[in-house]
């Protein structure tokens, strides 16, 4: 792999420990992917923020990097294990909070923005079409690649952090044109609800594995529809890029985009996927939307559908602080909170230690949220449209 003089210098330790360790990580990745060289990046999104995942050793590693490391590009953070302001309210312990704050502090020292969201594109980190970036968090990756047309591989926490510190990433995979062409054409039914797009993503993700699907027949999905579709695809398969005919930017620029393989998805298959993500007879203790983090439109829709009814079960809307602040100015936060809905930031029920909060059963409209709750956190799940969730919480 070709390294520039500056990259050689970083690798040799001339720019300090953090830069050296970062280059080692990037070179190891470049090696396994036969990358010709590095490419400079415009931004980074770092995962590995929740103390639940990092542990004491992960924290020590980041502290070590923070001694002499500084990121060279705008860098944003994934959600952590708690809402930084309201952690007591949701039952997080003092011990956990103390450790979590130490993690955030270490990232701050590296010069990273504590956006604490899986939707950096809604919190000030919006790439341009064609930008080379190094993002982690599978739903953010697929959104950046597919809906924005930027270019990133599926980075992990450490590799995204390394790329942020070195300001570059190995040139392989989705940074290259030839790897962005569709591998399969998916004829899908016209859908209207987010949870259906989520279920479609979950279903197609399992079928396609780690290819690049090109969807036709979806109509005109909104950004939130595409966000849900992407999250499902990324969660179920190793998918980092999808196209939607006539909608996504690379399709618009290449209208003759095609794939040799094709499959047809019927509505009943989507309904079957929805059933798969449901545990029969479960009684949710916590209902949540905002996986990925909610947009302002989703907050407004939830408020509208609530029609002034007060919730009677624990109901969370997870979002970024940036979106919450916008919603606050519009009076939406007050109205939702007065109906008993908690709008939480900086975290999510996947990376927060919610089983230690006594939660054994959840309900959500997110396929990713449902699958991870079941398989990562061992919880029972109800998955379906917002209307179904509302029926659960107002009783």
């Amino acid at each position, binding site marked *: 792999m070709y390294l520039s003089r500056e990259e050689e210098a970083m690798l040799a330790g001339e720019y300090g420990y953090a830069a050296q*360790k970062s280059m*080692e*990580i990037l070179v*190891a*990745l470049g*090696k*396994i992917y036969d990358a010709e060289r590095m490419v400079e990046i415009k931004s980074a999104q770092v*995962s*590995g923020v929740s103390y639940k*995942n*990092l*542990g*004491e*050793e*992960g924290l*020590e*590693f980041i502290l070590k990097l923070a001694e002499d490391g500084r990121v060279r590009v705008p860098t944003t953070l994934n959600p952590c294990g708690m809402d930084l302001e309201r952690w007591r309210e949701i039952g997080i312990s003092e011990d956990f909070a103390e450790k979590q704050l130490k993690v955030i502090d270490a990232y701050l020292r590296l010069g990273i923005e504590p956006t604490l969201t899986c939707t950096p594109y809604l919190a000030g980190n919006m790439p341009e079409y064609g930008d080379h970036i190094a993002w*982690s968090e599978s739903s953010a990756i697929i959104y950046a690649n597919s809906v924005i047309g930027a270019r990133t591989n*599926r*980075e*992990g*926490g*450490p*590799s995204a952090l*390394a790329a942020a510190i070195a300001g570059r990433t190995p040139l392989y995979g989705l940074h290259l044109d030839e790897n962005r062409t569709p591998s399969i054409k998916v004829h899908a039914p016209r859908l209207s609800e987010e949870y259906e797009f989520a279920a479609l993503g979950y279903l197609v993700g399992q079928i396609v594995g780690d290819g690049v699907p090109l969807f036709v027949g979806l109509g005109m999905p909104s950004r939130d529809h595409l966000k849900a579709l992407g999250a499902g695809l990324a969660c179920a398969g190793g998918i980092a890029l999808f196209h939607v005919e006539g909608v996504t930017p690379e399709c618009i620029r290449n209208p003759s985009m095609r794939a040799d393989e094709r499959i047809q998805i019927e509505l009943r298959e989507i309904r079957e996927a929805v059933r798969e993500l449901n545990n029969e007879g479960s009684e949710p203790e916590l209902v949540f939307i905002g996986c990925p983090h909610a947009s302002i439109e989703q907050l407004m829709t939830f408020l509208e559908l609530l029609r002034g009814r007060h919730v009677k079960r624990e109901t969370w809307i997870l979002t970024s602080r940036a979106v919450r602040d916008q919603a606050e100015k519009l009076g939406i936060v007050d109205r939702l909170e007065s109906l008993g809905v908690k709008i939480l930031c900086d975290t999510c029920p996947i990376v927060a230690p919610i089983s230690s909060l006594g939660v054994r059963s959840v309900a959500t409209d997110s396929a990713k949220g449902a699958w991870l709750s079941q398989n*990562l956190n061992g919880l029972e799940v109800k998955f379906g449209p917002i209307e179904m969730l509302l029926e659960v919480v107002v009783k």
Partner: protein
Amino acid sequence: MIELIGRAIKEGRAEGIALVSEEPISFYGGVDPETGKIIERGHPLYGSAVSGRILVFPHGKGSTVGSYILLRLKMRGLAPLAIINERCEPIIAVGVTIAEIPAVDHIDISKIPQGSRVRVDGRRVIIYPLNPVNSYHWR
């Protein structure tokens, strides 16, 4: 004795008893960072400790948090002595780099018998013949 040449993902030297898995290993959710034991339900090596072994498996899988799990194991003295893969993927590549665990890939792992004594040296993997004394020690 058999010598295999692979590709060094993390240069280093280690020698020990091989713990061989024909199935991929997920470090996040699949290996307990507190005990070093494989905890993935249904895994053929369920309950075995990776600690202090030459860990041989086709490739990693699962969440990239797995890289941090490797680091946690190393810092607690519970990590494998070295890792041998058929084809290394990012979780392991990044994990062995930050945890400083010697690692080699492009190795035909079917050539490594369970419990054999194995030495890793850069891109070289040396497999010593299996004998009753060797295999007694692998537990």
